[in-house]
């Protein structure tokens, strides 16, 4: 019995290794990725960078930048990719030798803390980064309640924070002067999506909305509704809220379908939410257009399956499209080399740090107030998606929002097809 037990332990220990070594075929953008391999590759890349920096005549200082990402919990599947994207940026940026402040060269180094997909985790992680690590700049924060929680630590400490997404003005606005956003977000997509519907689906009149119950909907939904109605469309009924920790979405999708909509908007969520919802909607016989926000279409298709992954639209990139910008193509090459994988979320993470470093370079200072002032003075800013502008003064009461023509793609038989870059109006 003892020998049998030992054998079984070996079997059990072997299985995860086998899992990790297998090809991840469900994600179409993936070649054969494993976190272990990726981490090893990244470590190697970082080591190379450090070595290169050491050979320069003047030793470079290290600027530590905090990374607030969920590495455990429901958000980890996507936010761990943001971390990997930031590490790719770190490698690339340090190789450029771009940052010199008062004659001193700086390499950047991201220090990550696990937000654990909870508000408490976000507060703890932010506290550790600000008080223990002593960072003055932080990248990270996607989910509203986590962003709000981290802000209670970073704002009083005047730590400049770049969040990747926002859903409403309570988590980001005049009350958070040290917070910037690196991407278009929820309310910004309602306009382009409605325009696309009007232009391509003239029979669509009523839209059902499914959105996570994370505190944001009561604030952003009036804005979304106003945008939709300005295009001659209307909501099919009350927006349907689903809990972020839900496992089964059937009832929520059924509730939306009971409104007899012509189209559906999935406003916010992650692929682990949108994939099942897309599948359920298609299995229930709904064939109309469905729109997501910015989520990874490859992961959504992997979960929903080929049959269900049709007539679905999302504001993200096709990783291998020739229409991508040069910098996106470069990121994909780097990620392929480092992680043996290509993911739109790497680009999303990269963009946040890319914008932050432009502001620091512009300020020529590591003082967060100086960087904040310099960033506020920028009217235009480069993004990985193309030329961007600073907006948000009318929408959020503060001009801290990087806005750019948003990439737009659709799922056709499980394949991601790029449609184009759509202009976004973010006054």
């Amino acid at each position, binding site marked *: *019995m*003892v020998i*049998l*037990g030992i054998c*079984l*332990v070996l*079997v*059990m220990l072997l*299985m*995860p290794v*086998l*899992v*990790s*070594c*297998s*090809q*991840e*075929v*469900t*994600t179409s953008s*993936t070649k054969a*990725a*494993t*976190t*272990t391999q*990726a981490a090893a590759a990244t470590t190697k890349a970082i080591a190379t960078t450090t070595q290169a920096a050491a050979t320069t005549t003047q030793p470079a200082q290290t600027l530590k930048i905090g990374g607030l990402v969920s*590495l*455990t919990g*429901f958000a*980890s*599947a996507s936010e*761990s*990719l943001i971390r990997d994207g930031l590490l790719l940026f770190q490698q690339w940026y340090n190789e450029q030798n771009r940052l010199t402040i008062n004659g001193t060269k700086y390499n950047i180094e991201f220090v990550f803390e696990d937000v654990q997909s909870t508000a408490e985790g976000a507060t703890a992680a932010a506290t550790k980064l600000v008080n223990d690590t002593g960072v003055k700049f932080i990248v990270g924060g996607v989910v509203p309640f986590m962003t709000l929680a981290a802000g209670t630590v970073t704002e009083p400490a005047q730590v400049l924070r770049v969040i990747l997404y926002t859903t409403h003005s309570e988590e980001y606005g005049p009350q958070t002067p040290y917070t910037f956003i690196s991407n278009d977000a929820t309310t910004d997509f309602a306009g382009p999506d409605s325009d696309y519907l009007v232009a391509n689906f003239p029979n669509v009149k009523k839209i059902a909305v499914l959105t*996570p*119950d994370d505190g944001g909907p009561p604030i952003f939904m009036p804005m979304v509704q106003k945008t939709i109605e300005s295009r001659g469309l209307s909501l099919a009924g*009350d927006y*349907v*809220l*689903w*809990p972020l*920790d839900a*496992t*089964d979405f*059937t*009832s929520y999708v*059924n*509730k939306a*379908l*009971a409104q007899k909509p012509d189209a559906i908007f999935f406003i916010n969520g992650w*692929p*682990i939410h949108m*994939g*099942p919802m897309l599948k359920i909607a298609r*299995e*229930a*016989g709904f064939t109309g257009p469905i729109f997501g926000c910015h989520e990874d279409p490859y992961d959504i298709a*992997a*979960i929903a*399956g080929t*049959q269900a992954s049709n007539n679905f639209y999302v504001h993200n990139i096709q990783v291998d499209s020739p229409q991508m910008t040069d910098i996106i193509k470069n990121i994909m090459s780097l990620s392929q080399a480092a992680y043996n994988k290509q993911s739109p979320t790497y680009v999303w993470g990269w963009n946040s740090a890319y914008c932050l470093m432009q502001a620091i370079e512009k300020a020529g200072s590591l003082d967060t107030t100086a960087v904040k002032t310099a960033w506020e003075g920028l009217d235009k800013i480069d993004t990985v998606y193309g030329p961007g502008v600073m907006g948000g003064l009318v929408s959020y009461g503060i001009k801290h929002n990087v806005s750019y023509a948003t990439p737009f793609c659709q799922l056709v038989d499980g394949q991601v097809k790029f449609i184009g870059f759509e202009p976004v109006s973010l006054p």
Partner: protein
Amino acid sequence: MDAQTLASTGISALMLSAIYILMALGFALLLSVMGVLNFAHSALYMVAGYICYEFTVGFGLSGWLSLILTVVVMGAFGVFLERFCFRPFFGDTNRIIVIALALIVILESLMNILVGTAVRKVPDFISGTIKFSGFQVSQQRILVTFIGAAVLIALIILIQNTRRGQQMLAVAQDFVGATLQGINIYRTMAFATVIACALAALAGSLGGAVYYLNPFIGDQMLVKAIEVVILAGIGSISGVFAGGLILGIIDAFLPMVLSGVATDATGLGIVVLILLFRPQGLFGHEA
């Protein structure tokens, strides 16, 4: 609520019930037979999903063969679990809880490190939908419901009509008495653990196909399993059927009238309400 919505939500309720029951049965079995609060059941559910994924996607085996192999591997792991994690601490609830919690952390961390948090999904065991009378429902969801029901019936037959099943009942009632009757209680407990792990494997594989895989997917399912077991009544295996069905119906139909996090809170509220009137659970016995 129109007929299509009712049919789809009804199937969803039954499928949820089936997965809850599969999860809760294993949890309840260990609790009844060994007095073990195996919180690591959630991690077993998760690991099983990944193993099934590996058999299907990594080795290219058919879904059904992968399902069977996963059940066998996880069942075998049950022997190890009983021998090295539960038996040394038999009767010591506190230590077993710590062991179970440690197992959760170890297995989740192991998967997180080795597999990563990337989204994966066990390929569908059966794809497509069934259309009848204007309704359209997922074949896979119907299949999961039938598998859950079949396993439940098989388990009840096993417990009530086989020698090993009767031995488990005897150990559950009084292990000292069972020992005096000549029952090898350790072998019986090992058998119960094997079945519990096999049930978690079944639930994890089916859940991994219906939903998705992530190192943390078991956490929410554990809460549901505990709810079902408490609702059924501690020590009641057959009560798990009713408990799972009630919770499945609540979870499927409540979102039709409520929204968001209110559904979770109300669902738990209903469970608490039931326990107020029947503290011993639906099928439990008065202390």
